[in-house]
C-alpha cells in the first residue's frame, strides 16, 4: 500500500465514529409504537352455531366450537394474506393454504396454525382479547 497522509489513528477514529453514527441513525429510524389496542369490541354480534362470524377488515373470525367460543386470526401464517372463510373451509387465496375450524393447517405452504384469541361474550357484544 502506498503511504497515505492518514494515520492509523485517523482511520480508527473514522471507523468508530461511522459505526456510532449508524447506531444513532438506527435509533432515530426506529420509533417506539404507541399503545396497541388490547381488545376489540364487536357490538350486537350473534355467533351462529355452525358457521363463523367473519370480520374481514379486522381479519378475525368468531367461531363457536362445542360450546367454546374463540376468535381465529385470519392472517395466513405463510406470507400474511387474509384467509377466506368459505363453506368448504378456510382457504388462503394467495398460495392455497387450507386450515380447519380450529386453525390447524390441513394443507398448503403454511407451516404454523392460525392464531387464536380469547373471546368474552358480554352485554354490549363480543369482546376479543388481542393482547
Amino acid at each position, binding site marked *: 500500500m502506498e503511504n497515505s497522509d492518514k494515520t492509523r489513528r485517523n482511520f480508527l477514529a473514522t471507523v468508530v465514529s461511522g459505526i456510532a453514527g449508524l447506531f444513532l441513525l*438506527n435509533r432515530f*429510524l*426506529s*420509533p417506539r*409504537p404507541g399503545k396497541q389496542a388490547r381488545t376489540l369490541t364487536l357490538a350486537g354480534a350473534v355467533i351462529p352455531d355452525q358457521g363463523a362470524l367473519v370480520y374481514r377488515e379486522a381479519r378475525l373470525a368468531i367461531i363457536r366450537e362445542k360450546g367454546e367460543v374463540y376468535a381465529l386470526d385470519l392472517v395466513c401464517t*405463510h*406470507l*400474511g*394474506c387474509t384467509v377466506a372463510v368459505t363453506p368448504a373451509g378456510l382457504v388462503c387465496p*394467495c398460495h392455497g393454504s387450507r386450515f380447519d375450524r380450529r386453525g390447524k393447517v390441513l394443507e398448503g405452504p403454511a407451516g404454523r396454525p392460525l392464531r387464536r384469541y380469547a373471546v368474552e361474550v358480554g352485554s354490549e357484544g363480543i369482546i376479543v382479547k388481542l393482547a
Partner: protein
Amino acid sequence: MFKGFIKHLFPRVVLEQNLRLSYTFCLGGLAFTALLIMAASGLLLLFYYQPTPDRAFPSILFLESSVRGGRYIRSLHRLASHLFLVLIFLHTLRVLLTGAYRKPRELNWVVGFSLLCLAIFGAYTGYLLPMDQLALWATQTGMELVKAAPFGGFVRAFLVPDGVGEALSLLRFYVLHVAVIPLALLLLSLLHFYRIRKNKGVLPFL
C-alpha cells in the same frame, strides 16, 4: 465548465473496434437513458402524488382522470421502469458473456452489481406507492419473506415500522423511492462511467 464536460464526452481518438454495435448493443447506455426518463417522468408525478395512506390512491385516480397527460406520464414512468430492469439484466448478461468483469474491471463489476440491486429495490419501493390491492399484498407478502433472510427482522423493522400500508411505512417507501435510491443510482452510475472511461473501454459516447 459545461462545455468542457460535454466536450470530454467525445474523445479525439477512439478504437475502431469500439464502434461496432454488436460489441455491446449499447445496452448500458440504453439503461441509463431509461433511468433519465424515469427521473423526468417521476419528477412530474411528484407534483400530484400524495404519500399518505388515505390520499395515495385517490391522488393517482385524480392524476389519471383530471390531469392532462397524467395517464401518459404515469404509463411512461411504469414502462420506463420495466425497460430499465430488462435492459439492466441484458447488459449484465452481455458483460458476463464478454468477460468484461475480469481484470482490471473487478471494481466496476461490483459497482454494476450494486446498481442492479438498487434498481430492483427501487422498483420494489415504487410498487407500493399507488396503494392499490396489487401493491398492498405484494408488499405484505414481500415483507414477510424478508424475515427469512439473515438480519431480516432488522430490515423489516426498518422498512415497515408500523404495519404494511400504514402512514410511516408508506412514507419510508416514498422517501427511499424518490430521494435515496435515485441519488444512489445517479452517483453509482457516474462512478460506473468514470471507471469505464478510465479503463479505456467500450463506446466513445454515452
